[in-house]
């Protein structure tokens, strides 16, 4: 009796953290991602140079004390631009991912749990999956850019548009994965048991199904962040997306391509930033999946 009480009760979250800690890649990924987030969001409080300020006498400067990352062809400070760009790219990634995950998991849960909804929802998913992504995005940008820019201002309007566009075009994979897991879970004994004591559908989904599908959702969420950052970069790269003077990592990369040979660092910085973020987020997702899956945990 005393034996049992001497070990303090372990919370579930503690278990998860212990498992997560043991995944070295995830730990490093998490630290890298968090530091990138901290630098791009809090950095501008210390490094107060305006990223769009043109300082024409300081063109094409190589890295120095006053310009740690150098300056671009118009004398704009690259460090400030990198931070401003990261803020936009990461915000777009996180928000678009949140939207896609919400949409995808809801569709997946509903389709998997309710037999009647399965057919229409899955056909809808297939329709969305068969739409070509980039042309669809281009059409959305053309149609909605002006009304949104008018309603929310050019930058916020574009942000909403891009997040919305990426969100509604990237939820399908999540929906399919979640539906598959739900279909399997639905037939398990504990669900039957819960049903037999009169659990309502809503409670059932929330308490028994959702916690068990959290690991595939987590994985697609992390993959989703990476995909959203890359899609935003692609849109900026095509000269769509945000206004041209509004730095994002994709736009910085696009602007630097002409100067790739003379000033390779200008391509390398945003390129490394995008790759590092995407890679660290993927590792993070990997670790989270292991940690959240009770069957793997402790092994």
């Amino acid at each position, binding site marked *: 009796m005393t034996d049992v009480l001497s070990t303090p009760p372990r919370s579930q979250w503690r278990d998860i953290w212990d498992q997560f800690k043991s995944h070295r890649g995830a730990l490093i990924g998490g630290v890298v991602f968090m530091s990138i987030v901290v630098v791009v969001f809090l950095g501008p409080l210390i490094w107060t140079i305006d990223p769009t300020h*043109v300082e024409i006498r300081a063109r094409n400067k190589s890295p120095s004390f006053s310009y740690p990352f150098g300056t671009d*062809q118009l004398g704009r400070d690259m460090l400030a631009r990198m931070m401003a760009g990261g803020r936009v790219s990461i915000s777009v990634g996180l928000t678009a991912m949140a939207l896609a995950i919400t949409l995808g998991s809801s569709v997946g849960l509903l389709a998997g749990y309710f037999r009647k909804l399965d057919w229409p929802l899955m056909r809808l998913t297939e329709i969305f999956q068969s739409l070509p992504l980039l042309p669809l995005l281009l059409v959305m940008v053309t149609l909605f850019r002006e009304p949104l820019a008018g309603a929310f201002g050019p930058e916020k309007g574009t942000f909403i548009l891009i997040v919305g566009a990426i969100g509604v075009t990237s939820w399908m994979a999540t929906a399919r994965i979640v539906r598959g897991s739900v279909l399997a879970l639905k037939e398990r004994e504990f669900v039957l048991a819960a049903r037999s004591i009169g659990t309502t559908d809503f409670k059932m989904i929330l308490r028994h199904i959702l916690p068990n599908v959290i690991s595939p959702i987590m994985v697609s969420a992390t993959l989703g962040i990476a995909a959203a950052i890359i899609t935003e970069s692609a849109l900026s790269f095509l000269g769509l997306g945000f206004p041209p003077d509004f730095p994002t990592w994709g736009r910085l990369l696009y602007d630097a391509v002409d100067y790739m040979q003379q000033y390779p660092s200008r391509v390398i910085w945003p390129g490394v930033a995008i790759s590092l973020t995407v890679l660290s987020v993927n590792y993070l997702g990997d670790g989270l999946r292991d940690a959240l899956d009770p069957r793997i945990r402790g092994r």
Partner: protein
Amino acid sequence: MKTKSLLLGAVTAMSLAPAAFAERGADGHVNVIYWQAPSILNPYLSGGTKDLDASAVVIEPLGRYDQDGNLVPYLATEIPTLENGGVSADLTSITWKLKPGLLWSDGSPLTSADVVFTAEYCMHPEGGCAQLAKFEGVDKVEAIDDLSVKVTFKEAKPNPYGPFMGAQAPIIQKAQFAECLGAKAPECTSANFGPIGTGAFRVTEFRPNDVISFEANPNYRDAAKPAFATMTLKGGGDATAAARSVLETGEFDLAWNLQLAPDVLANMAKGGKGEARSGFGSLVERIMVNMTNPDPALPEGERSTAKHPHPFLSDVAVRQALSLAIDRPLLVEIGYGQAGRPTCDLVPAPAIYVSGRTECMTQDLAGANKLLDDAGWARGADGVRAKDGVRLKMLYQTSTNAVRQDFQALIKQWWEEIGFEVELRNVSASVFFGGDPGSPDTFQKFYADVQMYANNFDGTDPEAYMAAQTCDKAPRPETQWQGENISRVCIPEYDAKVAELGKTGDVAKRAELVKELNNMVTNDSHMIIPLVDRGRVTGVSNTLGGFVLNTWDSELWNIADWTRIK
């Protein structure tokens, strides 16, 4: 012995043959890259230089301008002048004589009926002909006989070389376009995409906004030309890739319009496959100010039309402040280097037509601020000026191009310093200059407050160019959004002066008028804000012979003379 000398003779003859008689198609294939892809091969339905140039390979005018701005006959036997009697003494008519025996690429003969039809096609009241300015003041065009065409003007026309002269007014085949008059013009896809012509090449395949394949025209008038059997005109990509493909990798023979920062171009030329050539013509990078209201809240069809004047850009003080805030020499230094010169004029050449005003050359932010203060535009708490509830908030658009985006960033900063709020936008060049009446992003629609691009006039006479800014040439729904008066300038006095220019024969007097017209839209009213007189930069492969950079006509004007240097 006898056979030996015979053989020897034959060998000698064969080795001499290529030098002695050039042969059609002997030099194989030529690759040209236009980073703005042509979308149509009918210059009457498009204002884009890329379309004019691509169509110049196939269809030809009666005469062209050479690299020095001289008139050269193409389909005509000679350029009609007062001296040779081609132009009537009272300057009201001009008679062109076609070269005898000319054939279309389908084998049918070219006659004066085709020339008459071309005028009818462009001057059709229902059609939005993009080159109507070339036919300014034309009363009638009639065939005298099979090979002579007489153009009669409403009034004495001192420069009668508008119709059928230069890349903008080539002859199209009557048989092919007969059903395509007026409002039906844009519907004739096969004709617009594959016109039958008299030029050195004919179209084998046209993929809009992508690639055009040509082969030598079997009925071309000079049996020895063109030296190339086939030609590919690849469109799309960007200026950087185009420059690289000619200067550095040598995949292409000619790259048009390399608007790149000077250091970038110099670096590529180290590749040693080609060189960048530049020549100054009449190309001016400018900011067009929208005199009409582009507010998205207005109903479609009324946006950017004369119905709604612009809320603040109709104030001349505001426009002048915009112009004063710009440091033109710095723009040149950053964007063009040797290939540009700062200018305050819309007409930068030829010398006799240049007004040469220089007050815009020095940036004057204090002066610009004072102008706005005096005009009652007071700064608000956020630093943006406003008057009677109207804020100086502008959308500034241009095509996607690294140099233009740098200009945008710079100019935005200057304008914000004098109290404007500026939003930037860039549109893909093939859409911006595409002229598609269905797209909201074309420069003709002008759904922005100011926009920046470059334009020029072909030939050495700016009359048609000046006539393009008259009130009736503003793009609007009724003209299918065609027209060259992009700023929607509408000054009755200007229109009157254009009409007067059309009647004036004396060269000195004409030059005076052109200068006045130029200043009316630029230095005095600032409806058009010229920035840079741009040289045309073309990338030419070291193995391409015969190319002559011509800033007065189409880039591909002498394509029949191109050869391969072996």
